[in-house]
């Protein structure tokens, strides 16, 4: 059922020209193995280019070169993870890629800082100058180093504002804009790698490989983050066809437009929605499809929570919208067995509502909501459940004695009482992070392997 694309996805052209068989995706394990192999290749490049490590300056400079090579490689991987390549996205999932990206980002910042420090220190020891003088020489006199220093500053600044603590205090838009500055930083810092990198000087093959790595990643970003969204927006010209309130503060929006089935959106996936209206057009926000696409109509369901979702929930029919995507790996592609448990928390019901209708096999839905009023789609869910013979447990509120934030009702005993054969199930989880963590922890204890737990975090 799943087709593995074994190679690292080639830059741009091939992905666009040949129509992909729907469902082709890159297994996350294959992706990680390819990334690790590339890292080993980078170390091999240093190994073959170094004869001896002599003296303190030799050790420092050697370590500086290794960290520099790894930093350059990690930066390329960082961008690759955010390139929204469909095959990668549908395999690993957008949320997981974002977490990997954040992790790789912390590694890259550490490597870049270490590289700069060690090289300066090592060179200073070699030339018998102090570190400050050597820093000045490096920045001013070495080719491409002024640009690199600017890029270094941008990269470190972005790292600082992306740190979890700082990010909470920033508006998403500000954070996002600063993040785009890293593209400039990587471009500026790229050239010194080839002009000064000891392992690239006199090694044509290594230079070609480095150009291919950066050029390939740049092409993927240009293609999948700029050109494909532009084309999708222009081709489908989506409009809001209807608006329906599902529950207080929870609104479904229906979209129509030409060629919608070409999007090949699968139930469980989301799109990034950009409203072409004053004050809204500049940012795209992810919302899951809350029903399988049908009759040329897409439906999303939005809970008015933040300023953006509130604006979204009050849009009028006829509003023009661009949708980018579809994205996400919370789909039937990853289903392994004929028994499925869906666990929804609050507005996390939206993708699971679409899966409830479409996943094959025997389905159980646990729908967690704080209040009766928060339960959306009750009529739809009951109708689908009756037709399919699915079991639905609405778990509303919290009994006395269960403090807010406790793992209730996600306890292994409670779950296995409801589903004695839980261990044979595929489990799909979507909800607030705390609830999702509690649910996944409990499910793991009942013996469901991690590979059969499919989770998507809201926090992209």
């Amino acid at each position, binding site marked *: 059922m799943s087709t593995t694309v074994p190679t690292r996805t080639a830059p741009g052209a091939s992905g666009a020209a040949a129509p992909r068989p729907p469902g082709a995706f890159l297994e996350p394990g294959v992706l990680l193995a390819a990334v690790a192999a590339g890292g080993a290749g980078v170390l091999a490049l240093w190994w073959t280019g170094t004869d*001896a490590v*002599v003296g303190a300056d030799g050790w420092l400079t050697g370590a500086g070169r*290794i960290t520099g090579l790894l930093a350059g490689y990690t930066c390329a991987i960082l961008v690759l993870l955010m390139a929204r390549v469909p095959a990668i996205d549908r395999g690993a999932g957008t949320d997981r890629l974002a977490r990997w990206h954040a992790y790789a980002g912390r*590694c890259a910042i550490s490597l870049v800082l270490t590289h700069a420090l060690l090289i300066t220190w090592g*060179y200073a*020891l*070699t*030339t018998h100058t102090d570190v400050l003088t050597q820093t000045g020489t490096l920045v001013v*006199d070495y080719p491409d180093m002024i640009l690199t220093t600017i890029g270094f500053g941008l990269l470190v600044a972005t790292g600082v504002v992306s740190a979890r603590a700082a990010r909470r205090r920033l508006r998403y838009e500000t954070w996002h804009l600063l993040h785009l500055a890293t593209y400039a930083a990587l471009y500026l810092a790229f050239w010194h790698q080839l002009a000064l990198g000891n392992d690239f000087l006199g090694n044509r093959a290594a230079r070609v490989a480095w150009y291919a790595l950066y050029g390939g990643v740049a092409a993927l970003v240009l293609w999948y983050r700029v050109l494909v969204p532009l084309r999708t927006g222009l081709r489908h010209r989506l409009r809001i066809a209807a608006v329906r309130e599902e529950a207080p503060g929870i609104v479904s929006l229906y979209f129509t437009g030409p060629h919608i089935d070409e999007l090949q959106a699968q139930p469980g996936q989301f799109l990034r929605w950009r409203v072409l209206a004053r004050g809204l057009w500049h940012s795209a926000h992810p919302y899951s499809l809350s029903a399988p696409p049908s009759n040329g109509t897409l439906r999303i369901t939005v809970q008015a929570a933040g300023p953006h979702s509130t604006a979204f929930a009050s849009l009028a029919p006829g509003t023009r919208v661009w949708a980018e995507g579809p994205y996400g790996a919370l789909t039937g592609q990853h289903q392994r067995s004929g028994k499925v448990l869906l666990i929804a928390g609050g507005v996390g019901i939206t993708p699971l509502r679409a899966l409830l209708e479409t996943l094959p096999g025997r389905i159980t839905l646990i729908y967690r909501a704080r209040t009766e009023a928060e339960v959306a789609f009750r009529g739809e869910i009951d109708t689908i459940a009756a037709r399919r013979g699915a079991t639905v447990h609405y778990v509303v509120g919290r009994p006395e004695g269960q403090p807010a934030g406790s793992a209730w009702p996600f306890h292994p005993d409670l779950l296995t009482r409801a589903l004695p054969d839980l261990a044979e199930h595929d489990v799909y989880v979507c909800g607030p992070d705390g609830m999702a963590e509690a649910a996944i922890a409990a499910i793991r204890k009942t013996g469901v392997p991690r590979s059969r737990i499919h989770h998507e975090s809201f926090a992209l």
Partner: protein
Amino acid sequence: MRRAALTTVSSVAGIVLLLSLKPHSTAPITAATDDGQSGSSGNSSAAAPDSGTTGSSGGSSDSGGTGTGSGTTTAAGARDGTFTGSAISTRYGPVQVAVTVANGRITNVDVVQVPTRDRRDREINDYAVPQLTSETMDAQSTAIDAVSGATYTSQGYIRSLQSALDQAHA
């Protein structure tokens, strides 16, 4: 946090391991290993640099160096004049020196060419070349130490110096 600490520690350990697996001394520099890849030979009268012998049959009356096999040549007994050594190609570019001998003493070493491909090469030359030259003047022979951080330049320097002194003894 624990993962970050683990990643950091294992990365540092990995890098230290890689560095420690490399040899920690430069290959012994012996002028006798010169493989004769000279790009140019300064003096037409010069002996071929790969002959590996100092001219004991020449006009020199003194011991003429510490022996042909040892790879070290002293200035004692050398003819007066300026002798340009072979250009020795190194990983970073050719190194070539010219040595001036007067009364059996090296009075000057000129660097004809050293690697100047980039700023770092020049930076290394700026401190390594004067050091090599002063070592040569002190030792009055090719028995000088490589300068730390300038291994390739040192090797090229010593071998070119050897070839120049060979000519002085011819």
